[in-house]
């Protein structure tokens, strides 16, 4: 009965009566599972201590594979984009990615991603949750799901931080909602108190005592969830760990290498947060929806993303963090092989690419290939589920772990997918 065991682990940190009953109604042998609970939570705690983490570099809009990691300089579909050599002989990527090229020995490229969703909203949802959108259930973001599995219960910082907007925790609730940072390099808005710390704590004490009145008037559940939120928030406010948001101790030279822009700073923040024990950091780069002037615009974007990404991977490596941190570069889909009349490329989910580094991924390899014209996957198609299952493997999270939706439906972290074994071989 492996299902019972997973259930028991997941229920441990937030075993509310309701959720427990949902599980029971979902046909789980509750009595048996409960006996394993403490045992399993011990193992889960070991996992948490390992501090496995993920950094998602999200290229919002859908990055062109031709202008990133699958250039086709010898075909007309490739446009004017040249290919450059990397630190790994035989692997060539698009011009503009010189810093990333230097750390290619840490990177595995998947050039054979294939999917069907060609609408930004739907595909972004899918590439963030592993599920296509459905009206009836708000799926948790993958980041929230792995945060639930991996987050260190003792950390004051939110388990999931996003530099820029992202998809939320869905039915997993407030504990795993992304903490959105808009100005990396500064203490996030309203984290600093307006009154001295002891007075702030005194206020919290008063609030806590006053909350019981409303609970007694029939709002028990509301008060409980509010108290949990305020507990988490005040823990953050009072914590020393918020200095992870402050770059003043970072050498200027390193800050310069990351880049003096939102994305570069976001990547430096990602490293600092992972170092401080945060489980998942997403850093968003906007503007990849290049229906017009594709070549000019992707060049400009690469000028920001490339140095940040190359520096991030090298910096994580230098600090010994890369082994436990998987870095994933991707967007919601690729772009059309044919260049349109506006010198742009349109949405193309049929063949696109993803880059991964760290977290046990064997770098310096390319998985899959597209045809010469880039229109089709020629070798080893990889579906979204396969990618997510593989990331789970890196994070040592069970992709079949089931969370129970509010309507009582068990939902796996990854719906279906097979691990890409080559990634780790």
């Amino acid at each position: 009965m492996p299902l019972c065991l997973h259930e028991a682990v997941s229920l441990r940190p937030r075993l509310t009566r309701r959720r427990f009953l949902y599980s029971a109604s979902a046909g789980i042998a509750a009595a048996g599972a409960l006996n394993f609970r403490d045992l399993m939570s011990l193992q889960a705690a070991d996992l948490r201590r390992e501090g496995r983490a993920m950094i998602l570099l999200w290229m919002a809009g859908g990055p062109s594979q031709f202008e990133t990691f699958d250039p086709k300089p010898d075909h007309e579909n490739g446009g004017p984009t040249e290919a450059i050599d990397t630190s790994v002989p035989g692997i060539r990527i698009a011009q503009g990615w010189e810093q990333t090229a230097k750390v290619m020995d840490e990177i595995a490229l998947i050039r054979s991603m294939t999917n069907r969703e060609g609408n930004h909203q739907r595909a972004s949802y899918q590439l963030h949750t592993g599920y296509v959108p459905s009206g009836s259930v708000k799926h948790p973001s993958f980041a929230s799901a792995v945060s639930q599995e991996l987050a260190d219960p003792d950390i004051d910082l939110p388990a999931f931080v996003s530099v820029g907007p992202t998809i939320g925790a869905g039915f997993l609730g407030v504990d795993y909602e992304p903490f959105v940072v808009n100005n990396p390099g500064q203490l996030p808005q309203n984290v600093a108190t307006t009154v001295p710390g002891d007075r702030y704590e005194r206020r919290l004490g008063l609030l806590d005592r006053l909350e019981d009145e409303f609970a007694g008037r029939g709002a028990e559940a509301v008060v409980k969830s509010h108290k949990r939120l305020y507990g988490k928030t005040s823990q953050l406010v009072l914590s020393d760990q918020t200095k992870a948001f402050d770059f003043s101790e970072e050498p200027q030279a390193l800050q310069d290498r990351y880049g003096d822009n939102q994305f570069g700073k976001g990547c430096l923040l990602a490293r600092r947060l992972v170092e401080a024990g945060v489980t998942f950091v997403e850093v968003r780069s906007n503007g990849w929806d290049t229906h017009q002037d594709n070549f000019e615009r992707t060049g400009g974007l690469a000028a920001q993303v490339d140095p940040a990404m190359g520096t991030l991977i090298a910096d994580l490596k230098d600090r010994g963090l890369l082994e436990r941190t998987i870095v994933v570069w991707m967007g919601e889909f690729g772009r059309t092989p044919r260049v349109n009349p506006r010198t742009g490329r349109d949405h193309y989910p049929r063949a696109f690419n993803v880059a991964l580094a760290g977290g046990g991924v064997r770098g310096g390899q390319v998985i899959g290939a597209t045809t010469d014209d880039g229109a089709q996957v020629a070798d080893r198609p990889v579906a979204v589920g396969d990618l997510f299952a593989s990331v789970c493997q890196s994070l040592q999270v069970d992709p079949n772990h089931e969370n129970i939706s509010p309507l009582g439906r068990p939902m796996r972290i990854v719906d279906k997918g097979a691990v890409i074994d080559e990634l780790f071989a």
Partner: protein
Amino acid sequence: MSCYLFRRNRLRWKFLLIAVGAGLAGAMPAVGHAESPPGSLSDTSPDDVAAEIDRLIEAQIGSPEKLAPRALDEDFLRRVSLDLAGVVPTPNDVTLFGLNPAPDKRAALIDQLLAGDDYAEIWASYFSDVIFLRATEARSRINQPVFQQWMAERLAENAPWDEIATDLITATGSVREEGSVALVFAHGGAPEELAAETSRIFLGIQMQCANCHDHPTDSWKREQFHELAAFFPRIQVRPQTAGDVRTFVVSSADDFRDNRRRFDPEQIFRRLDANRDGELVKREAERVPGIGDRFDQILANADADQNGSLSLEEFKTLRRPPMNQPGRGSAEYYMPDLNDPAAPGTRMQPVFFVTGESLETGALDLQRREALAESITSPENEWFSKAFVNRIWGEMTGQGFYMPIDDIGPERTAQMPEVLDLLAAGFTASGYDIQWLFRTIARTDVYQREIRTIDPLDAAPFAAASPTRLRSDQVYNTIVRVLGVENLAGQRTRRGPGANGPVRRDPARAAFAELFGFDPSTPQEDIVGNIPQALFLMNSPQLNALINGNADTKLGRILKEHDDDRDALAELYLLALAREPSDREIEINLEYIAEVGDRVEAFEDIQWSLLNSSEFLSRR
């Protein structure tokens, strides 16, 4: 001794007790109605329908001890004020309402709120969230204030829901002037998105899963979804620059003399090549809208010999315009071929999946959209009425008959379906009278009961009211009321150009909505707040400046006016929570004041705690 307030409050309590007693007594004759057949609808007076709803629910729940008692006047007043006016009542309102001995004062208050401007404003903002928080066209924000103003006008004149729905489905016009284009523009005129959202909002049926495959759990077929999308292909959304203002215009693209399905480059070339010299130049192309303004781009792409003009051979290398280009207008709608996304797909006939009503291909844009609006709003289509009733009932009571509130339809199971049927039948019979629905729901005992934490596994729904989280506008309205300011930006509300220009959106309200807004179709249990919201309420410098008890703030004035701590406390509680503090709360706060030793500082902390309390953010 400033014990006037205290005395007044004691008096008020006496009245409250009487009111509660009257409420209990009033419930007794309701049992006498039991003879009337269940679900019958002799007339649609809100009172009769409300009474029948309560009878059905009480009969279904069985034991009266499972029913929560009628809420206190102060709880009812706060609840109904938030629901129908979007803001908490003033301390004065609370006291007066408590003192009012009229037995029908709750019904009278409901009528009074429905007649007010605030009712129209708050529900316009609600529907704005329903539409725009699911927008797939990011630029649609420019229409949001225009929509809100339009919707508020429609609600104020109590336009029936079928008229509003028809307006939204059939709208055309400039997005800076015409509020009703909201739904169409929120999706850039894209047929698939409009099919999905029209069905979700007006029918409560989630068809979008059938976009790519037959619905996984329901019986909807992929064809049915695309037949619904076939009501929308001719919508055109075009940018327009008037003066230095950039806008978009929603219109019908019915002029398809050369059917795009038979894309014949030679024919088009002959038509464009006015002087018949076999070369197409910009001057010739400019005569044709849609080609002239893109000619430079076309030239850059297709002019192989780079002579600045296009020969027929060069022209033929241009790609044929793809089908289903959202917002470009296409004569017909084509269901994509999943195995070959580049193929034109299958031409679909407009068919309304609920009733099977259909139109011929070739129909004009407005013929299609009007036909669809007519089918959707027809009294024969029960889902139109049920979707709206379920939504408003869910908002008002915290529990829908179906949950989530926008996922209903023949394949879902409702709680207490006979109550929904009754209410939906009444709403239809009223001519989709929106205020009738609000009035009826607000008059039920279900609406007027005390709150309880709802256990979703408990089989007694609607036995109590359920505490729900306030929407962003309700919280914002309440914060500015409590702090005694016009807005949180520290500015006066300004109007745009001209004396009657549109009200400039309060920038602080918009920023607040960014932080506190949520899709109103989200199930209540998923709305739990987040860390940035808590950080804002705890540490925002703006907010903290406004609770400075030494400055000329609301708190500063209260402290000056009331040197008795109990009075000041009562005033603060009335202001923030629209009720007086309980004995226990008075005790905790007085203890706290003594402990801190500094009156102003202690009261600042108390007001901070009230603003940060879960009750402040909830409808109780």
